[in-house]
């Protein structure tokens, strides 16, 4: 009898354990699930395959997370995790960069483009099993992003050019209406911020719960929070964190994406991110079999290529997918303006022919071959090659033909004759070119010390300028000093890079005459050149239409004007997208810079699986 009781009891325990396990996740696929047609002919995903469930994947990253709060997170070492936990109304497709429905299953846009009605997916749940609805969307915009007490960079992103914010209102539990004060084409991109769970977080917002002090939300979901408290709609949720060692993420049992066979995504159960302090260690860890995927540097490619067959790995070098962002040399057209000195140099820098001469003296090919093992593409436009608005295309989203590219070929003779033409010649026979008053032209190139690629690049440029008689020196300096010099217009030349995306409007703060990063000509805010006024107009035109073809025309002119007429930033090169994976990782080939930052190494981690 005792035995029977024991067996019954243990069976009960087993059954209840099963019941708990079954309660984790949807019983059947939600009606509004988002289907990713992996391997289905004729779709964007036909080059991938449906995967197998289970397994753990290991990757590594530099630096530790700073918090788990997606809204207030600032840098990639944090958003790497939080963006896996959260999802937005819209998302950028990692394959072609198009804006697609995510939490919103569809939307209607009014004829004037000022009212967008989003229809949310029904029946999908937060990772703790709470139903998702319009209240979460309203909470995210009205109580967090538009709330001045909350530290968030999303607020700047979504602000319209007329300084107003889109008004977000609830129509019913599954419908949200967004009203704009002006036509703003990129709204569908900008609206895709991560939606936060109201049922978990409303209590920490002073506006909704006056019992907590102002600003409490900025400390909410910090590293002191028990990961069990965290919840989201994205594919993975943080499960545990060991500082300086690892972050373990588990699959969200309530994720709303499924493959065409009806298997819920993500495929892998766990996704472990080792936090390391240097890329060299990551490389060794990958070679030692401790990581499954590694975002290698161009310098690592030859070592890994040599091991490709022996280790059964694939090294991806995607020249057609350069990383997003720009690298450039900027010529300070306001040099000495603040204290009324160096007028000669300022006039020279303001001379467009001088800047063209500089372009002809930039040997991008040598830079690419010597500094990054040839794994880069020359850059000429501020807009990414991957953007459908890239001026190297003939029409919006068309194939890249480069017929419109503004390319100054490397030609020192041409550079020298341009200098002769503007009267910068050697007047005293010492081998260096002089101003009209006989003083030698002297200038300095700065970049951040420790970045060997940038240090090498300015050395190559300086060497070429010396060859044509320009007395230039290279002087790498501390990063913060460099930024301070750049932003206070206290420099001659700076070599640096900026982050960027595929939406040209995101460059407004750099290229508009009054932009805070218009660091080559701050005085343009008061006295813009004609060409700078035109750039401002073109940026306005690019967002003021919902017609992508019209926007493309504006952005094409914008890019050609910037690269050929304005010559504020002289672009250098953009690294090819490189990464490496063990061949047992399925669907790893989807990786693309377009996938980031919402994914890691550009990989859409909910599609990756471990081959049997």
């Amino acid at each position, binding site marked *: 009898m005792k035995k029977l009781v024991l067996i019954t009891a243990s069976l009960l325990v087993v059954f209840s354990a099963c019941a708990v396990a079954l309660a984790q996740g949807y019983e059947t696929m939600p009606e509004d699930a988002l289907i990713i047609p992996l391997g289905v002919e004729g779709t964007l995903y036909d080059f991938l395959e449906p995967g197998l469930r289970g397994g753990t994947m290991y990757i590594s990253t530099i630096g530790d997370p700073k918090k788990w709060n997606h809204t207030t997170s600032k840098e990639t070492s944090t958003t790497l995790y939080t963006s896996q936990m959260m999802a937005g109304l819209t998302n950028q497709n990692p394959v072609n960069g198009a804006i697609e429905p995510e939490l919103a299953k569809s939307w209607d846009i009014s004829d004037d483009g000022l009212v967008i009605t989003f229809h949310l997916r029904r029946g999908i749940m937060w990772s703790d099993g709470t139903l998702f609805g319009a209240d979460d969307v309203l909470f995210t915009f009205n109580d967090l992003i538009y709330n001045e007490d909350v530290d968030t960079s999303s607020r700047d992103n979504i602000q319209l050019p007329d300084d107003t914010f889109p008004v977000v209102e609830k129509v019913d539990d599954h419908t949200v209406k967004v009203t704009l004060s002006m036509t703003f084409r990129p709204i569908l991109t900008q609206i895709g911020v991560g939606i936060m769970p109201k049922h978990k977080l409303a209590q920490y917002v002073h506006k909704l719960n006056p019992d907590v002090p102002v600003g409490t939300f900025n400390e909410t979901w910090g590293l002191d929070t028990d990961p069990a408290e965290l919840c989201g709609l994205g594919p993975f949720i943080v499960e545990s964190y060991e*500082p300086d060692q690892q972050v373990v993420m588990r699959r969200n049992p309530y994720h709303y994406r499924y493959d065409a066979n009806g298997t819920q995504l993500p495929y892998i159960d766990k996704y472990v991110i080792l936090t*390391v302090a240097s890329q060299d260690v990551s490389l060794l860890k990958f070679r030692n079999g401790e990581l499954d995927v590694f975002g290698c540097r161009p310098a690592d490619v030859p070592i890994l290529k040599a091991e490709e067959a022996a280790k059964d790995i694939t090294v991806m070098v995607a020249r057609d997918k350069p990383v997003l962002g720009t690298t450039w040399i900027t010529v300070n057209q306001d040099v000495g303006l603040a204290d009324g000195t160096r007028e000669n140099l300022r006039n020279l820098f303001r001379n467009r022919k001088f800047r063209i001469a500089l372009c002809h003296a930039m040997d991008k090919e040598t830079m690419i071959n010597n500094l990054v093992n040839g794994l880069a593409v020359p850059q000429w436009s501020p807009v990414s090659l991957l953007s459908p608005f890239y001026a190297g295309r003939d029409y919006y989203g068309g194939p890249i033909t480069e017929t419109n590219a503004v390319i100054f070929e490397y030609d020192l003779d041409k550079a020298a004759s341009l200098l002769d033409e503007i009267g910068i010649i050697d007047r005293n026979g010492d081998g260096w070119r002089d101003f009209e008053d006989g003083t030698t032209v002297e200038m300095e190139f700065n970049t951040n010390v420790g970045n060997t690629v940038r240090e090498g690049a300015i050395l190559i440029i300086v060497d070429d300028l010396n060859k044509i008689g320009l007395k230039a020196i290279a002087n790498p300096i501390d990063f913060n000093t460099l930024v301070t010099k750049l932003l206070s217009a206290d420099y001659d030349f700076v070599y640096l890079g900026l982050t960027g995306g595929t939406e040209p409007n995101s460059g407004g703060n750099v290229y508009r005459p009054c932009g805070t990063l218009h660091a080559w000509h701050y005085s343009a805010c008061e006295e813009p050149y004609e060409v700078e006024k035109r750039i401002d107009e073109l940026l306005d035109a690019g967002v003021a239409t919902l017609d992508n073809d019209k926007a493309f025309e504006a952005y094409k002119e914008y890019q050609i004007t910037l690269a050929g007429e304005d010559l504020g930033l002289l672009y250098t090169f953009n690294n090819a997208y490189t990464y490496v994976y063990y061949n047992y990782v399925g669907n790893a080939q989807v990786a693309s810079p377009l996938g980031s930052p919402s994914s890691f190494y550009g990989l859409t981690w909910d599609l990756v699986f471990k081959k049997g």
Partner: protein
Amino acid sequence: MLPLLVLVSLFSFAIIQLMPGDYLTRARLDPQIKQETLNALARRYGLDKPFMTRYLAWVKGILTRGDFGTSFETRQPVFFTLFLGSRLQWTLVVSISTMIITWLFAIPLGIYSATHQYKASDHGLTFFGFLGLSIPNFFFALVVLWLLVAVFKVGNYGLGIGGLFDNRFIAAPWSLAKIGNLLWHIWPAWLVIGTSGMAGLLRYMRGSLLDTLSLQYVQTARAKGLSEHIVVYKHAVRNAINPLISMLGMTLPNLVAGSLVTAIVLNLPTVERAFWSALQMQDEYVIMGGLLFFSLFLLLGNLLADILLAWVDPRIRYN
């Protein structure tokens, strides 16, 4: 002790202000962030106020609320950020175990070197000691890891490199296998940090013992017919070791601060790494917290040395 800490804090705070830029410098280069937002952040973090105002506010926070400030990055208290997880524990484990290993090797080798003065083995030990001292730690650490991966191919045996554990052990509960794995991961740290400290210690021990061996009481001991073993170990070494124990006070903070580079290359989860990241981001209150912590370590090391000295040498008394 306290006035010293106050001075240290004032100087450190001033030096941090001398560093170019501030915590928001990086954000200023982000095209997505507007000037108004940056200004609002500067106000929130107090970065728009003059140096003395901020320093006094910081000191006031410590005195009245025991509040050492909040990290800009994590929005959590400074020491929470620095000691998060097991960082403090691992710092102590790594530095104290390295110190013990260094002493265990350096003292006997120093004695051997002194008693075999100018012999080939003495020169050999000196050579290897200085080799360890002169190889930069970051380079040596990388070479060790590279040898393990590319030459010995430890991955084929399921062994990981860097950090304190293999992936599968990081979150696992303690077991014999986990301790074994810890030993596998910690020896490169012993080797790299240990060899850099060994040469100095070895030479000190050698010099100090040679001095002692030339003293008259040692000659007396020999004249009494005591065996060489007893002369050296019982009479000479006990006196020769005193200056080294005073040195201990200085080695302890060196182990903590000096292993920064090694901790980064070997990927050790210690306080130094959190401090390093704060330095890079100019998360100034965390830097201050870290500096105070390292100063405290220095003072503790000196205290420990004094106590040890009194213990090994009955002639020394603190009244």
